[in-house]
């Protein structure tokens, strides 16, 4: 029953009670039209529909700002409905273009399609289902129903095309790739020399060395293989800086997505750890499916405030294969130096891509002498932190997020040690 029914029923009852109390037959006669309005929905049950529902998201993985067309097909296989109001429930944060609702009658076997477009920023958006409100034409009775038809839309982070990144983990995998493996074999980079043995290709003979030592010397080349790359995205809210339109974390996510794309395209085995609220781990694997998995994980990556993950002390290093390459994307705090040194000491090759929080925050602050002084102090602290890490053998890329990542990697590449 609806509010309108209660309203008329109340008026009718007031008239009946007044008529009985005052012993006035006229008031009772006046109540009859109201009572008929009240009795009608009690007499007539609302018809029972039998819904078939299907949702289509095209595409269900998209980049920020791209449109996704949503179609919800509803078919009534039950009784005819006089008036139906159908609304597709959509999650907060998406921008709707079109009308995700239908209002009208619904006959047996009739099919209606709710069609509209959504756009959104990076994230996972779940469309839970459809709300159906069925009523009679007089608006006196109404049934509400929720039809579950859940689908998730993944709005993926933007990806930047990266140029060659030099990494050299201690241990590589057996398949041929692009990462130097510290072992001689088929390759293009010079690795060393040794005495010639029958069977060595003659074109690898090193004539100069042979002339000096009066021996046949052959050149050795370094094998290039694929490697395990573990990417850690720092999602601790303690290191986050945010403005109305921009967020340092979003830049970190973009960097992670770009690095994932690059290393998977190079044939490496890549895993992702989002370190924030809990340990969100995507197991290392190769190829396009892994790319889709990691991108979905990055689409849903959120900042966390869990006290346990406030520092890198509890970084689950066992998740990464021994002596593999670990890439951390973090704005960094002074307290992070020790756990990262420890990671390096365990034998991992560590590369840190650090979005610069000072450069990010600088345009938002007033430009005066105090701000300049504060910036200089903060810059000194940050430089000291980065220097400590570099001294420990950690490769650090200091990235001003106003510029592209590939440029920062290229600039840092010249100074990177092997």
């Amino acid at each position, binding site marked *: 029953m609806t509010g309108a029914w209660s309203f008329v029923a109340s*008026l009718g009852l007031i008239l009946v009670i007044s008529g009985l109390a005052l012993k006035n037959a006229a008031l009772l006669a006046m109540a009859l039209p109201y009572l008929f309005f009240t009795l009608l929905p009690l007499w007539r049950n609302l018809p029972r529909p039998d819904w078939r529902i299907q949702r289509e998201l095209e595409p269900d993985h998209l980049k920020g700002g791209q449109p996704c067309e949503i179609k919800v097909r509803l078919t009534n296989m039950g009784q005819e409905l006089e008036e139906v109001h159908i609304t597709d429930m959509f999650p907060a944060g998406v921008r709707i273009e079109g009308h995700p609702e239908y209002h009208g009658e619904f006959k047996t076997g009739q099919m209606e399609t709710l069609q509209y477009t959504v756009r959104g920023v990076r994230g996972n958006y779940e469309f839970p289902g459809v709300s159906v409100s069925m009523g009679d034409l*007089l*608006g006196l009775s109404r049934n509400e129903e929720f039809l579950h038809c859940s689908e998730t839309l993944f709005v993926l982070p933007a990806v930047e095309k990266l140029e060659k990144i030099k990494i050299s983990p201690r241990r590589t995998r057996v398949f041929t790739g692009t990462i130097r493996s510290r072992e001689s074999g088929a390759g293009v980079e010079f690795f060393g020399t040794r005495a010639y043995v029958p069977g060595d290709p003659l074109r690898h003979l090193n004539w100069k060395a042979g002339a000096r030592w009066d021996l046949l010397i052959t050149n050795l080349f370094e094998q290039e293989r694929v490697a395990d790359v573990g990417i850690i995205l720092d999602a601790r809210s303690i290191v986050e800086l945010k403005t109305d339109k921009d967020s340092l974390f979003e830049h970190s996510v973009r960097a992670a997505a770009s690095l994932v794309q690059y290393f998977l395209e190079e044939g490496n085995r890549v895993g992702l750890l989002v370190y924030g609220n809990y340990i969100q781990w995507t197991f290392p694997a190769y190829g396009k499916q892994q790319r889709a998995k990691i991108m979905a994980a990055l689409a849903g990556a959120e900042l966390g405030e869990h006290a346990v993950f406030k520092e890198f002390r509890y970084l689950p290093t066992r998740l990464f294969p021994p002596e593999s390459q670990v890439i951390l994307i973090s704005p960094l705090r002074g307290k992070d130096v020790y756990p990262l040194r420890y990671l390096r000491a365990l034998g991992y090759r560590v590369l840190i891509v650090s979005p610069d929080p000072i450069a990010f925050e600088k345009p938002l602050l007033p430009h005066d002498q105090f701000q300049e002084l504060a910036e200089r102090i903060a810059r000194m602290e940050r430089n000291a932190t980065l220097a400590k890490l570099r001294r420990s053998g950690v490769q650090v890329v200091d990235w001003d997020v106003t510029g592209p990542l590939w440029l920062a990697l290229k600039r840092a590449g010249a100074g990177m040690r092997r």
Partner: protein
Amino acid sequence: MILWVRRGAAVWSGIFLMALLFSSGIQWGGMAGGILNLAWTMAEKFPSSLRRFLLPSALVINTIFSAYGVLSGGPVTWAVLAAGGSLLSWNAGLFSQRWPEASRPVQSRYLKRIGMVVALGLGAGLSALAFQGNLSLPFPLALWAMLVAGVLFLCLISQALPKATRKFP
């Protein structure tokens, strides 16, 4: 179509209310009822917030005025007719607010449904009064008989109506 039915019903209830109140000697009530129903007739011209408030409040005030007119010795028939018109206008207003773009067949179906309910209500009310007079029944008994008869009749019509309006290919 619904809009004009709603306006017509508002005018109808306004006329009977004024007649009832003037005949009972309540001049101010007749004037107030007339103005209220005139405003109700033009409800679509008002802002939606005011319209939402006006629809139920007009029904309440019309009911109160009708009851007051009857208690003051006015003719009961006019009170029943005014109440029926008010109900029709209120419900048609609700429908046009809820479903302004309703197609013509839907409007026709709605009018049949509301017409049936209002006609039954008015018929039962007026017949109850007539029965009481002609058969010298105690009024509660006449009322009970009319209510039962009306409900049965409603059931009969509601079962027959879908068959009558079904379209054959």
